[in-house]
């Protein structure tokens, strides 16, 4: 529409942030222009949160520059970023529920009279400020009186009133219903038209297309690209997010089709589902075969694993193991049946950071045996050393705390934990997440090796190329329900992306 592009408000160049074992952000650029809503997209672990933390000064950066209106800034905390004109509103509302709405709006800069807080003026001005943001509420009431949606609008009002150049919204619609999302969008469009640069982080693609002007996609801590929303078809966007660009895994080649062993599957899910978690899906897991699961963040892909491993209990459909119907009430039931599960968030659900590699490896086997049949120290050492060698876990010895290993080696240790129990079915959620790209191929090779040794594998991944390479079947999830099943030669990265992005009626939020 405009001939000359609007002025650049914020320019971040080459932002880098190193964590132990993984480079969370690697030379990422971000350009924000006045009067635009800019979507920041990427799968989990892409580096979105890290980028936001660097912009708001919540974390120091290891490299790169940030300029606001051409002036280099170096925020050393939320206060510094706010002074520079950058404010963030998070999905979790970081206001104080024990204070009044007006106190929240003006905390630290309350209007005063004779040295005392001018309460009536503060409430009046707070009310007026909120009315400009479309909220007609009594600002003297406690914040906790209001719904999450209203609190979020209050947080935005505070942020814009404090520093009105760049507004970062991290998953603002995650806990809003459809009407509330529309209210928020209306407000954001008004703010955009006033010249604010807005960063909008979400995993709802419909919302990206409904609201934003420009898109920056991150993947594995790197910048994939910046596009105008109008020029980027949904299919291409999904491809950017899931990484179809030839990188380290481009050498992966698909093995010959028709490898699915004959005979009854080891585990069969028939219409398995749970209300408000994931819609009914079918899955057949054969010994010596890989079932891949693909889909975007929030598509329900992880939830299928939670049902198969008994973390959540299904309320519909049935699960057959060796042809017999079983009910999984807890992961213990699943472990007893010979299942193993490497969860998505290693740090949160997987490794026990303070324990040694050896202790982490023997954990699942010990739990399976029961705590009264303790593995002797000699057995533990033998087991740990065997898997460290087998999986090529790079560590000087088995007694090193696991948190000191790199992401890839932590993942291998987790894998070792389950391999030690000699599972019949191994479920892996994002086995290559947060691992330096070079180590991806190694993990993939390991999976193929396990498959060839007759294990049934269920692998959930947002690495489309990898899924396409090692899967015998691919279950595609979308909007918390199955969206297709690909088999044999029809499994190609393009076909998977197509199935994920296939146009469907707009569902708004939820």
């Amino acid at each position, binding site marked *: 529409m405009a001939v000359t592009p609007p002025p650049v408000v914020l320019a971040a160049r080459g932002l880098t942030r190193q964590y132990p074992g993984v480079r969370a952000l690697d030379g990422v650029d971000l350009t924000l222009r006045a009067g635009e809503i800019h979507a920041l997209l990427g799968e989990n672990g892409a580096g979105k949160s890290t980028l936001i933390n660097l912009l708001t000064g919540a974390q120091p950066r290891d490299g790169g520059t940030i300029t606001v209106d051409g002036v280099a800034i170096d925020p050393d905390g939320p206060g510094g970023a706010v002074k520079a*004109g950058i404010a963030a509103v998070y999905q979790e509302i970081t206001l104080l529920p024990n*204070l009044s709405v007006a106190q929240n709006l003006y905390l630290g800069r309350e209007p005063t009279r004779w040295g005392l807080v001018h309460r009536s003026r503060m409430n009046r001005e707070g009310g007026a400020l909120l009315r400009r943001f479309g909220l007609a509420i009594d600002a003297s009431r406690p914040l906790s009186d209001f719904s999450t949606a209203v609190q979020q609008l209050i947080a935005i009002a505070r942020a814009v009133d404090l520093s009105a150049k760049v507004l970062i919204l991290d998953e603002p619609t995650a806990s809003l219903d459809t009407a509330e999302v529309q209210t928020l969008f209306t407000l954001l469009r008004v703010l955009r038209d006033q010249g604010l640069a807005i960063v909008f982080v979400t995993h709802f693609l419909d919302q990206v297309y409904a609201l934003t002007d420009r898109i920056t996609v991150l993947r594995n801590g790197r910048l994939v690209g910046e596009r105008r929303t109008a020029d980027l078809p949904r299919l291409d966007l999904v491809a950017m997010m899931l990484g179809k660009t030839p990188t380290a895994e481009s050498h992966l080649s698909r093995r010959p089709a028709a490898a699915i062993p004959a005979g009854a599957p080891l585990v069969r899910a028939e219409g398995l589902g749970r209300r408000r978690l994931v819609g009914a899906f079918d899955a057949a897991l054969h010994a010596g075969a890989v079932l891949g699961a693909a889909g975007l963040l929030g598509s329900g892909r992880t939830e299928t694993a939670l049902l198969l491993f008994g973390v959540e209990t299904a309320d519909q459909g049935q699960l057959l193991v060796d042809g017999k119907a079983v009910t999984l009430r807890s992961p213990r039931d699943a472990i007893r049946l010979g299942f193993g599960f490497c969860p998505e968030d290693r740090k949160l659900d997987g490794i026990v950071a303070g324990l040694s590699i050896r202790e982490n490896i023997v954990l699942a086997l010990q739990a399976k045996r029961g705590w009264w049949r303790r593995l002797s120290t000699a057995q533990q050492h033998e087991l740990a050393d065997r898997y460290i060698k087998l999986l090529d876990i790079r560590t000087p010895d088995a007694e090193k705390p696991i948190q000191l290993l790199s992401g890839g080696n932590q993942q291998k240790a987790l894998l070792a934990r389950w391999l030690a129990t000699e599972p019949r079915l191994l479920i892996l959620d994002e086995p290559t997440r947060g691992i330096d790209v070079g180590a991806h191929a190694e993990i993939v090779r390991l999976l193929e090796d396990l498959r060839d040794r007759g294990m049934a594998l269920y692998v959930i991944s947002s690495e489309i190329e990898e899924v396409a390479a090692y899967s015998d079947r691919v279950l595609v999830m979308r909007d918390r329900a199955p969206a297709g099943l690909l088999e044999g030669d029809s499994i190609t990265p393009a076909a998977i992306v197509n199935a994920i992005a296939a146009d469907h009626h707009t569902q708004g939020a939820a």
Partner: protein
Amino acid sequence: MGRFMNTRTLPLLATVVVFVLIYAVCAAQYPAMLGLRVMGNLLTDNAFLGILAVGMTVVVVAGGIDLSVGAVMGLTTVALARLIEGAGLPPALAFALVLALGGLFGTGVGAAIHYLKAPAFIVTLTAMFLARGCALLISTDSIPIHNAAYDTLAAAALTLPGGGRLTLVAGIMLLTFLAGGILLHGTRFGARVFALGGNGHFAQLMGINTGRTTILVHAFCSLMAALAGIVFSLYTRSGYALTGTGVELDAIAAVVIGGTLLTGGVGGVAGSFIGVLIQGLILTWITFDGTLSSWWTKIAIGALLFLFIAVQRLILVASARYGRSGAGPAAPNTPNQATSAPASRPSSGAAAPSAS
């Protein structure tokens, strides 16, 4: 209705109801307790506790605790006695000195809590031993204070109708509550204290200097403890190192009974005032009774505390369960309001988000 029946005011309301009930029982049994004479004495006898409770309220609202106030009070009385009796300082100078020392002591306590990231419980426990030890080092005996100015101050009082007397120390206590109320509810500092107690991390994200606030809060609390020591030494006209053993717990009890949540962020000094009065009233009633051991006060306070903690818990649970419905009236009108936003916004827009 909704405005007054929320988690913030309900505990205070419960405290007022309990106070009125106890007062009614007392008055029914001993009509003499109704008079201003008894009320005047009540204020005088509990002046030091009231002043401690003001400081404690601020600390607890900020989400902390201070176990050192009793020891600081004891240290103050014995230091005063030594300064006036031993060194011959005029009382006014001695007062200024101990107040300054109290403030400094609290600054150190607050700094230790903030910079060492240590729990307030442990740091103030350490401070308690430190202060009590220093007090006993000065003197293990009670030191009487013989000073004309002191006697005048101690005896100074307003005569109330009905033969009651509002002594100077009682007046100081009332003024302290007034000042504490203004500080906590009327100043920017007070808002920061509530913010810190509500959620320290969020407060920091909102740009509050939480370290400075923590230090100031403890400085204020110890200052109040020193003031309580002055008041107590006027009341007894002596200084004794073991003065105020355990009163930090009485002060905490008064604060909790007054409706201030130990988790921080909610409360105020008005409730603490009533909490002090309730404790004093129970003691007075037991004195009137004459047959009961005064230790029954402790039992009654214990029972009351338990009652209040249970009530606060119930209110929190209830508000968590019905709180959504409380938000109901506000939420529905927002989408309608919001639809009018685009129309009204551009016109007022120029005034809204001005940069800089």
